């Protein structure tokens, strides 16, 4: 596709941003279904999430390719260049988030038809999921609005998810001696961990927002130097 004028190029860039960030809506709906599948031990719904991940991957491939074309044909610089660089990152985050939903959904059939579910733990995981959903939406809005403040707030929101994840771990330790119960709890821990990772990806998107606006890339929080 040849873009004849610079204004067409700007329109194309705007379209690609909307399309790339739209991937976060796909992730949200994937996460909704994943949570529902956990809540109701719905194996069919889980299969649907797995199958539907192709849409997220497709979005990734399509927008990624178009961004590469813009780089090759339009030599973007300054804000445009930072935006494209950031979008390439965000696409990767979107794709990873989708994969985490798939990871969870692959585990659901493993726990059997009527697992010995601990109600409190399921509740915790659903709360985690809803909180993570908020993070995803907030990361999208922060990007759209180029709002660094809102992007930084993702760290605080993500801390809530991390705390819930630790709470899940504590519950799993106390789940008792029954091997089936323990197996279920282990699986749920993995699910909680996957949700927690989705939250981390949302924070990464926030870092890209800061990069687009300021031109500087800094990790909001550095896991390997927590006090640095």
């Amino acid at each position: 596709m040849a873009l004849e004028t610079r204004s067409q190029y700007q329109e194309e860039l705007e379209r690609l941003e909307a399309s790339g960030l739209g991937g976060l809506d796909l992730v949200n709906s994937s996460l909704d279904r994943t949570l529902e599948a956990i809540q109701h031990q719905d194996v069919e719904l889980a299969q649907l999430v797995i199958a539907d991940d192709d849409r997220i991957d497709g979005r990734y491939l399509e927008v990624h390719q178009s961004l590469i074309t813009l780089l090759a044909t339009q030599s973007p610089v300054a804000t445009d260049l930072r935006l494209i660089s950031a979008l390439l990152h965000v696409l990767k985050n979107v794709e990873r988030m989708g994969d985490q939903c798939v990871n969870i959904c692959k585990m659901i059939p493993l726990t059997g038809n009527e697992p010995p579910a601990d109600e409190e733990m399921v509740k915790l995981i659903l709360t985690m999921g809803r909180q993570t959903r908020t993070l995803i939406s907030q990361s999208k809005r922060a990007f759209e609005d180029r709002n660094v403040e809102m992007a930084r707030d993702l760290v605080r929101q993500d801390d809530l998810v991390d705390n819930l994840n630790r709470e899940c771990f504590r519950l799993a330790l106390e789940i008792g001696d029954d091997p089936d119960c323990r197996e279920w709890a282990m699986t749920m821990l993995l699910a909680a961990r996957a949700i927690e990772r989705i939250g981390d990806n949302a924070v990464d998107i926030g870092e890209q927002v800061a990069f687009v606006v300021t031109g500087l890339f800094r990790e909001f929080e550095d896991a390997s130097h927590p006090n640095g």
Partner: protein
Amino acid sequence: MDSRDPAETLAMTEQNPEPQASPEAGAGLPRSTISIAGESATTPAKRSREIGNVELQGLNAYYGSNHAVRNVSLGFDSAKVTAIIGPSGCGKSTMVRCINRMHEEIAGARSEGRVLLDGLDLYDPRIDIVAVRRSVGMVFQKPNPFPTMSVIDNVTAGLRLTGASRGELEERGHQALIGAGLWDEVKDRLKGPGVGLSGGQQQRLCIARALAVDPEVLLMDEPCSALDPMATLRIEELIGELKERVTIVIVTHNMQQAARVADTTVFMLDGELVEVGPTDEIFTKPNDDRTEQYVTGKFG
């Protein structure tokens, strides 16, 4: 220089018409390229790259009543490539032409402010204008080899005015061709006509001609705009090699070229200096909105 009326400027140019050399300059090789009695801008024997620093102080340039360059103060560091970008008519070529006093050659044109080369005011009335042009070489948009001259004569044309011996001419002509990355291509046709070379080769021939007199500064006004991509690339590589020995100021409309070759980029608009900074900053995170608008192609 002080503001002087065009008539006075003209009188001055007539005193030192190019390309006639002044008697002093003809006395030997132009190792000590430019000086006022007692002061010298170069260290003749061994050139360290501490030399070749250009500084503009409150430079204004006019074409009649048209105020083309507005109060620009700016430094060009030695061993660095500085690119000047900006839309057509923004004064970038005019500003560059003030550095080697080419601007004043145009009827009705004048300039105010100071242009310092290593602290020496190039507009000082005691300065020999020929020496200025030798210290500050220039390469233009279209290659302009002397049409009747051979390859080697083109390169040594400026040198011959300095009274260099035949042996010196040959030696320095060859060195200049090597420096301009043209030697291998022309060594078997040195006596052939300069205009028989390809466009890219002709431009490198002009660069060799400028280098032959050992300038401290090389001004390049859109040097690649008439060249194909490969010839352009060759010139850009050459710029990278030359910057160790000469301060380079390049005017370009090709922003990617500025991004590729320049250490520092200057953005001008309507005769004013809008922003100057490290090239990577200008093209990733410019400070001024107008720079942003220009480099992203929203105007210009």
